[in-house]
């Protein structure tokens, strides 16, 4: 192909793309689900020709752009606050897309292949700086027969604002009164102790290099980097290994009201097999949109996203797919989306 031909092809492509302007959607937000979103939007583009541009600028930016109306949909790891929903006249629906989990990773060579076991109150006290030694009797009680060293615990947390921190602190807020009063939950909080690492890779490197460290990273990251991670005691008293299945179980056992707005935290969820540090990540869409054409495109995409095919892609990238219960709840909500107060006509 000569340069001239390439130029012609590009010009032709541009001409073809121009009238198809309405056939594209833009979105912005969370970075954590970016890999699966990118894959979905690519697969959807190949299947239907509809282009979805997604900028992974972070949940905060996603909510802001959604509020300002500069994007067709937003994406966030933490649900919008009532005040933020007020800013868009409550014209927002949170649609869960996949489930993420956060694992506790550590550097204790003396443990060998034994998996550490932890409960929520102990984790909170470690991250509060109340428990400072690895051989503390509370840790020892949960790990009978494990050789815990008489070493200082070095806490490592995320320094950048992140959905991972949001999920982790949301969990600690539920299991520790003191954590709730002193720190609470958000994408960045005032950490009582510890070192800050930038990104999952920053936390991981500090944990890998420094003996006696404990930190938290996304499940996906821990699985693909073969990091050791702890079993966490869930609300029924079982020590559960974090996995895609146990994260999906957390979403399945979460209790939803019939008219739920899906802004539901599934950390510390009930159920024997649930992993307690799990959370949805959401797309933000307008239940009543001003642009009927784009609303139809978005609705069609959302319907495609909850098909077994699309949800199946999540597993390949190590995101936990939505359980059938949640998909069944989402379906009628997508069908009820409106434009200018009227139902969106079917395709």
């Amino acid at each position, binding site marked *: 192909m000569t340069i001239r031909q390439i130029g012609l092809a590009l010009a032709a492509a541009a001409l073809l793309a121009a009238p198809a302007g309405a056939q594209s959607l833009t979105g912005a937000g969370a970075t954590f689900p970016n890999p699966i979103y990118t894959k979905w939007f690519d697969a959807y583009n190949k299947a239907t020709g509809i282009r979805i541009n997604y900028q992974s600028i*972070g949940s905060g930016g996603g909510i802001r752009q959604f509020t300002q109306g500069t994007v067709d949909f937003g994406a966030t790891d933490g649900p919008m606050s009532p005040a933020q929903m007020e800013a868009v006249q409550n014209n927002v629906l949170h649609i869960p897309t996949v489930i993420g989990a956060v694992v506790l990773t550590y550097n204790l060579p003396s443990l060998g292949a034994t998996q550490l076991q932890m409960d929520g109150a102990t984790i909170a006290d470690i991250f509060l700086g109340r428990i400072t030694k690895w051989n503390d009797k509370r840790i020892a009680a949960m790990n009978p027969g494990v050789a815990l060293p008489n070493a200082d615990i070095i806490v490592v947390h995320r320094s950048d604002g992140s959905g991972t921190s949001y999920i982790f602190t949301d969990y600690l807020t539920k299991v520790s009164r003191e954590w709730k009063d002193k720190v609470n939950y958000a994408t960045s*909080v*005032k950490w009582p102790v510890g070192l800050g690492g930038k990104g999952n890779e920053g936390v991981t490197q500090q944990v890998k*290099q*420094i003996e006696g460290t404990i930190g938290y990273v996304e499940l996906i990251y821990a699985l693909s980097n073969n990091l050791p991670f702890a079993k966490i005691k869930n609300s029924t008293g079982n020590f559960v290994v974090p996995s895609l299945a146990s994260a999906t179980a957390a979403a399945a056992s979460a209790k939803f009201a019939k008219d739920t707005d899906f802004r539901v935290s599934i950390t510390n969820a009930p159920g024997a097999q649930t992993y307690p540090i799990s959370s949805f990540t959401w797309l933000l869409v307008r239940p009543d949109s001003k642009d009927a054409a784009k609303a139809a495109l978005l609705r069609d995409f959302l319907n495609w996203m909850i098909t077994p095919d699309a949800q199946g892609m999540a597993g390949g990238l190590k995101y936990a797919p939505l359980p059938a219960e949640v998909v069944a709840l989402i379906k009628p909500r997508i069908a009820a989306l409106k434009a200018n107060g009227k139902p969106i006509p079917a395709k």
Partner: protein
Amino acid sequence: MSPSATGSDATLGGARFGDRLFKAALTLTALAVPVLLGFLVFELWAGSREAIGEFGLGFLTSSEWDPVEGRFGALPLIFGTVVSSALALLIAVPLSLGVAIFLTEFAPMRIRGPVSFLIELLAAIPSVVYGLWGIFVMIPFLRATVFPFLKDTLGFLPFFQGPIYGPGMLSAAIILAIMVMPYIMSVSREVLLAVPNTQREAALALGATRWEALTGAVLPYARSGIIGAVILGLGRALGETMAVTMVIGNRHEIAASLFAPGYTMAAAIANEFAEAVENIHLSALSYVALTLFVVTVLINAAARLLIWRVAQGGGGKSA
């Protein structure tokens, strides 16, 4: 370029018109810079208005940083920025000056080119690469060798006490030193090359040793240029973000120990901006940016003043 004597009035007029056009275009480009700067300051100010109203100047002296409760203070960030940059210069200036002097005064001709080329190449490495190198190579090395040595020999000083984590103020200063070295080195080298040879020859002819010629005749001549080079390095160190945040430990705290984690203004902005949801959090980050801008301007102004004074003083003495 001057119009030839045979040129007609028409071409002269054309040249004048072209000149005027050229002048106008240049004026516009020159104006664009201060206008852009004005917009920048205005944006920063507008963005931080909410935080300025909420915290006032107390923002600069408070150490609180609690995004959940919406309480913010930038003192640890200002401290971290100034200390890490100052330490970086403390390490980088003697090293880069040494290299520059060696390359201009003492090194054999054939190695001068390659060595200075290699050092300037360091300036072309993206800062995120420095950061990754810092995490994977430098910190493990420092943790195993240099830091324990410092703790054992200088542990009586408060700067070298406490647990050694690896990431911390000293690690940040060292990576910054490596990053600013090529700038200081290459500008000082140019400045030293610009010192007239007669200056050296005169000193040597008077019976000075090479050391005396260097300290008595060459360095005083190059003094203001060398200070300029150091300021250039300082500017780079103050604003450096990626590499620093990856190795400094990112903790909003002021600690005496250089092994302890710290934080800088640029790093905090980069870390928290994307996920900042509350308006007051965003506004506080803008306020940090404004503070960084002011600190940078103040330091640069002080440096200009210093260069000016040195140039005056130097001129007076050598006369």
